């Protein structure tokens, strides 16, 4: 079974802090994704990566950056956290362009 592991389940940060959300997958998948999930809005794509050191903006990249130095790891960075970034963050990976996404358990981030 594919395992996508997000390092924290719950996180509380203060406004202005730099926040790192980590995601690791163990199946040598090419593609990795970061989504945020908000009630009534479904999941919205923040950034994705289809290869090491490659990154592409999703639909809502503002206020975020990402890093993919190794194939198995995809990090989401909030440079200066704001209260409107309070959300559930979901990482996902897929083998290739034709395969379904496998999701991690999510990180619920609260910015106060």
């Amino acid at each position: 079974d594919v395992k996508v592991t997000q390092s924290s389940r719950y996180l509380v940060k203060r406004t202005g802090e730099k926040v790192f959300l980590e995601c690791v997958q163990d199946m040598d998948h090419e593609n990795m994704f970061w989504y945020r999930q908000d009630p009534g809005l479904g999941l919205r794509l923040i950034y994705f990566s289809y290869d090491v050191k490659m990154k592409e903006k999703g639909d809502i990249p503002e206020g975020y950056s990402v890093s993919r130095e190794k194939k198995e790891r995809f990090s989401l960075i909030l440079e200066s956290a704001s209260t409107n970034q309070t959300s559930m963050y979901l990482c996902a990976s897929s083998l290739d362009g034709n395969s379904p996404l496998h999701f991690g358990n999510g990180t619920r981030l609260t910015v106060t």
Partner: protein
Amino acid sequence: ELKVEQNPLFLSMQEGKNYTIYCNYSTTSDRLYWYRQDPGKSLESLFVLLSNGAVKQEGRLMASLDTKARLSTLHITAAVHDLSATYFCAGVIIQGAQKLVFGQGTRLTINP
């Protein structure tokens, strides 16, 4: 730009009844996914529909795709309590990787 809309967003039904969740999308999508999410859990892939007229069934759930109408449906037959969850559909844009665009989700509650 691909937009995906689900309805209804909330559905409360009794065990034993049948119902359908609808998923409309705005432009061509290579395929259509259905996911399930239990409270506090991650998303679990249910179905991937690849072509017009595709139908997939698993237990009491059946998904279909009409690419001409840009419509997918998830039909629940003789609902049971264990099917209570939030269901998401997602269309796909191929842009380097397979980008999923999600609907808002349908929260399904099945009462005994």
